[in-house]
C-alpha cells in the first residue's frame, strides 16, 4: 500500500516537472478578476504562442504573495499605483520598467506620467498604467432615492440594507464624508490615527445597520440584484453592470468625492518570462484590445484612443454617473506611506470584533 502511494507520488512529481518544462512559453499573471478576459487571452495565444495563466487576487494578497517569494513565481502583477512605491522600497519585489520596450504612444500621456511619478523608487519608475476606475456608491434608487454620500452607509433609514468592504477605501471614504481630508494627513501618522479612530467609532456605532461586509464583488452584485441591499460602497463598474440588468440600480459619485484608483502593470523582481510580460502589456494597451476589455468590464482604460472604439452604452455610463463637477471632485489616491497599513489593520480588526 505504502509502496504504491510512493510510486504514484513519484509519477505525479515526474509529470508535474515534465509539463512545466514542456510549456516553457507561459506567462503567469497575478491580477484582479476580469483583468485578463478569455477572448483576449486566446487572441494573445494566437498572435504570440504564449499561454497566459491567470491568478486572481487583490492588492494586499498580491503584495503578500510576492513578498513571500521575494518577487518570484509570477511574470507580471497588477497592483494599484498607490501601493507600489513604499512596498518596493521595503521589500524590493518589483523590477524597474524598461520604457524602451513599451509602446508609449498607446498610453494616455497624463496617466503615464502620473503613474511614473507615483511609482518612482531609486530614480526609476516601476509601473505603467492599465486601467482606472472609482469607488463610490452603488444605489438602488427605487428603495433609497436620496442616498448621495458615504454618510448614507451610516444612515438608520437603510437599516439592514447596507453593505461595504471592511478595507482601507471605506475608512478613507468616511474620512472625507466626515469633512476631513485623509490624504492630507498621510504624512502625519498621529493625526491620521486620530482621524481613523473617529471613523472607526462611527463604524462601530452603526454596525447594527450593516447587512454584511462584502469581500467578493460577485457576492455583492448578487445581494444588490436580489434586493437584499440598497446602499453599498463599491466600484463603479459593478454599479454599471447592474444598471444594464435593472435600471433602478446605478453607480452614484458621492458628494464628498469618488475615490479614484489606477491599476498598473508591474514586473516582479524574479519574473522568468520578462519578454512575454512586455508583449502582454503592449498587447493589452493596444486600442482595439483595450476597448474589448472596457466593453466587457466597464472599467476606464489607460489606452490612448480606445475610448472611441468602446460601445456607446459604456460611454453613456460614464456621462450619466459623472457630470463634470463630479469628475473634478474625484479624490485620486496618493502613494500610501509605510506604517499606515498597520494602523488601519488594527482599526479594521476592532470594527469587526465589536458587537
Amino acid at each position, binding site marked *: 500500500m505504502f509502496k504504491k502511494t510512493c510510486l504514484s507520488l513519484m509519477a505525479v512529481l515526474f509529470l508535474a516537472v515534465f509539463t512545466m518544462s514542456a510549456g516553457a512559453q507561459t506567462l503567469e499573471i497575478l491580477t484582479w478578476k476580469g483583468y485578463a478576459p478569455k477572448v483576449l487571452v486566446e487572441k494573445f495565444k494566437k498572435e504570440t504562442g504564449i499561454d497566459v495563466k491567470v491568478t486572481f487576487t487583490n492588492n494586499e494578497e498580491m503584495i503578500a504573495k510576492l*513578498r513571500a517569494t521575494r518577487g518570484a513565481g509570477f511574470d507580471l502583477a497588477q497592483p494599484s499605483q498607490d501601493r507600489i512605491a513604499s512596498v518596493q522600497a521595503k521589500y524590493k519585489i518589483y523590477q524597474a520598467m524598461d520604457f524602451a520596450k513599451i509602446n508609449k504612444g498607446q498610453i494616455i500621456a497624463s496617466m503615464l506620467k502620473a503613474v511614473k511619478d507615483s511609482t518612482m523608487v531609486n530614480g526609476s519608475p516601476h509601473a505603467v498604467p492599465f486601467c482606472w476606475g472609482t469607488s463610490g456608491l452603488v444605489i438602488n434608487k427605487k428603495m433609497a432615492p436620496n442616498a448621495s454620500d458615504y454618510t448614507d452607509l451610516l444612515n438608520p433609514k437603510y437599516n439592514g440594507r447596507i453593505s461595504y468592504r471592511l478595507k482601507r477605501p471605506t475608512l478613507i471614504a468616511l474620512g472625507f464624508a466626515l469633512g476631513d481630508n485623509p490624504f492630507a494627513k498621510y504624512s502625519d501618522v498621529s493625526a491620521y490615527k486620530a482621524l481613523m479612530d473617529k471613523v472607526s467609532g462611527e463604524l462601530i456605532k452603526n454596525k447594527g445597520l450593516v447587512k454584511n461586509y462584502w469581500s467578493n464583488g460577485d457576492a455583492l452584485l448578487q445581494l444588490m440584484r436580489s434586493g437584499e441591499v440598497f446602499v453599498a460602497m463599491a466600484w463603479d463598474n459593478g454599479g454599471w453592470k447592474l444598471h444594464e440588468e435593472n435600471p433602478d440600480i446605478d453607480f452614484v459619485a458621492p458628494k464628498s468625492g469618488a475615490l479614484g484608483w489606477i491599476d498598473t502593470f508591474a514586473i516582479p523582481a524574479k519574473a522568468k518570462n520578462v519578454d512575454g510580460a512586455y508583449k502582454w502589456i503592449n498587447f493589452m494597451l493596444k486600442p482595439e484590445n483595450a476597448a474589448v476589455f472596457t466593453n466587457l468590464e466597464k472599467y476606464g482604460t489607460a489606452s490612448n484612443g480606445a475610448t472611441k472604439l468602446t460601445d456607446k452604452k459604456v460611454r453613456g455610463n460614464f456621462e450619466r454617473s459623472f457630470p463634470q463637477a463630479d469628475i473634478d471632485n474625484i479624490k485620486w489616491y496618493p502613494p500610501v506611506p509605510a506604517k499606515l497599513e*498597520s494602523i488601519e489593520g488594527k482599526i479594521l480588526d476592532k470594527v469587526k470584533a465589536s458587537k
Partner: protein
Amino acid sequence: MKQQNIRWGLVIFITPMLLWLLLLIVLPQLDMLFMAVRAENDLGEMGFSLINFKTFFFEPIYWRTFARTATFAIFVTFLTFVITLPVAFYITKVVSPKFQGFLAVLILMPFWVSELVRVYGWMILLRESGFINHFLVKFHILDKPVEMLYNDATMIMGLVYTSMLFMLVPLLSVLESLDNSLIEAAYDLGANMWTILIKIIIPHSMPGIVSGSIVVFMLTLGNYLTPNLMGGKNGLWFTEQIYNQFIASFNWNQGSAFGFLLLILSSVIIWVGLKLSKQKLGQVMQ
C-alpha cells in the same frame, strides 16, 4: 546480510515520513518562531523583541478574540458530540447490519465536495432571498423573509455540520466493540436508559469521544471559511486575525506570534481536556 536488508528497507520507508515532518512541519514552525520573536523598532530596523507576544496579552481585542474562538470551539465540540452519539448508536446497534454501510456512506457523502461548496450551499439555503425563506413565506409561516445568515447560531450550525464526520468515525468504532449483552444485562437489572448511557455507553466510548473531540476542536479552532462566510460581520475568528496581520497589516512577525500562540494555547486546552477526562493521548490516538 538479511539484517542489512531490513535496515535499508526501514530507511527507505521512513525517510519520506521524516522528510515530511522536518521540511513541512518542524522547519516552518521554527521559522515562524524565529519571525515571532523579531520586531521593528522605531527606526524601522529588525531586532529581537518579545513585543509581538506582549501585544497579544495586553491588547484586549486580540486575547478576547482568542477567548471567544476557543469558547465557541469547545461549545461546537460538545454540541457535535451530543448530536453524533445517538446517530452512532443508531448505526451500530439499532439498524440492521445490512444498512450500516449505507448509512455510514450517507454521512460521508457531503464530504465528497469541498468545504467551500458546502458553505455556499448553506448560504443559498439560508440567505434572505434564499430557498428556506421562500417556502416559509409561501406557506404563510412568516410574513416577510428574515435574514438567517451572519449570526452566531448559524455559524455554530455550519461548524457542527462540518465537524460531524470526524466525531462519528471514532464513535462508530468504539461502539462497535461494545458488547450488546452488557446493555441487555443492565435492562434486566432494572436500569433505565439514562443510567445505561451514563454508566455503560459513555465510559466505554471514552477513548473514541476524546479522540473525536480533539479532532473536532482543532478543526473548528483552525477553521477560516465557515466563520468568515456564515458568521459574516460578527464572525471574527482568531485565524482571521492571523490572516489580517499577514495580509492587511503586512506585519508577518505579529502574525507568526499569533500563529504560535494559537498552537501553544490550543495544545494547553487539549492537555487540560485529557487530564479532566483522565485519558492518555497515546491510548486515545490508537
